[in-house]
């Protein structure tokens, strides 16, 4: 089997550049990659073009402002931006403030762990492949669930997606940050 190239996903690289260097060129790349996808994503559940753009703008501005909270040991850029997009969409449409969990900010002195970041990327790739392999109706159900088109009572996600392995990877990333907290409990 050919050796698969092991590189951190491009959007994650851009987002880390934005986080660490306030790099505008990298932000411009992030915009080009995510803005049209976000717009398509938001319009899938009936949000009009103008409002979708308003939310895309808001999301991308939030990405710039909150980049310091991004931690590639726990998430890929797309997962982090997905959550911002859903939260902003709800804040704007329902005019309510979504409760969010405590963010464990990374210790700025801690060295990045390249193998952990790669592992998160690999798990995300597995997940994407698994989604592609779903039956059309399952895929449709997942889309609806994560777009917020199903009520919490309608969501019963038994998709066979490899969430367990993703979780264990993320747990490792969290452990870096949680050590102190666990000590306190």
């Amino acid at each position, binding site marked *: 089997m050919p050796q698969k190239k092991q590189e951190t996903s491009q959007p994650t690289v851009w987002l880390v550049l934005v986080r660490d260097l306030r790099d505008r060129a990298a932000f411009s790349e992030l915009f080009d990659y995510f803005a049209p996808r976000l717009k398509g994503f938001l319009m899938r559940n009936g949000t009009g073009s103008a409002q979708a753009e308003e939310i895309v703008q808001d999301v991308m501005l939030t990405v710039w402002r909150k980049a310091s909270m991004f931690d590639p040991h726990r998430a890929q850029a797309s997962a982090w931006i997905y959550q911002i997009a859903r939260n902003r969409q*709800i804040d704007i449409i329902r005019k309510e403030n979504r409760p969010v*969990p405590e963010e464990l900010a990374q210790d700025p002195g801690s060295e990045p762990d390249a193998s952990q970041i790669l592992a998160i990327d690999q798990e995300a790739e597995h997940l994407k492949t698994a989604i592609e392999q779903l039956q059309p109706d399952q895929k449709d159900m997942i889309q609806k669930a*994560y777009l917020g088109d*199903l009520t919490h009572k309608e969501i019963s996600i038994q998709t066979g997606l490899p969430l367990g392995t993703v979780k264990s990877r993320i747990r490792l990333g969290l452990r870096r940050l949680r050590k102190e907290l666990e000590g306190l409990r």
Partner: protein
Amino acid sequence: MNAITHHIPDTMIAAYVSGNLPHPFAMVVAAHISLCAECSASLGAHQAVGGALLERSDNVAVSSGMKTDLMAMLDTPIRSEPIFDAKGIFPSPVMEALKGKPPRWKTLGMGVKQSILTEVGGGSVRLIYIPAGQAVPDHSHSGLELTLVLQGSFSDETGRFGVGDVEIGDENLEHTPIADAGDACICLAATDAPLQFSSFLPRLLQPIFRI
């Protein structure tokens, strides 16, 4: 201190990630995730699914001036929003709902107190204070009820719940939680419908105390 044994079910975390959970429950889920590494990892896994769907979603071109406008906005100073850090037993989502102030307890009798954080429509989130050894009046739920322990512990017909544990009650759960010996039990409780008390007197008091 004991490890968390009662978690948020996976489907509820999926609903939370996708913004499908009514506000009162979202508050309890956010508070639990703040305390629980296991559910925090679950949250990350569901966000990864969301991210994968975002990456494979259709590209729809944005208006031509949008990027220029946005790049020009990057330097605009932001009105900094207050940040509410965790304080004592209260994780940051609770501190945010309290706006950084200590809870304003209202007594319900028998030493039981509550502090309503938010109330929208039929749903509400409140803090409940139960002295050690005290029972919460027998009640059933017409909807869903999530209870997260923040201090002490309680036991009922279904088991024991310590700090960080979440009890999920629905129509089928008629229970009498009793605070265990030791510290008073303080919980964060959310419902999407008013509670119904089985005994006569508390039902009369219900509209008064808004239980």
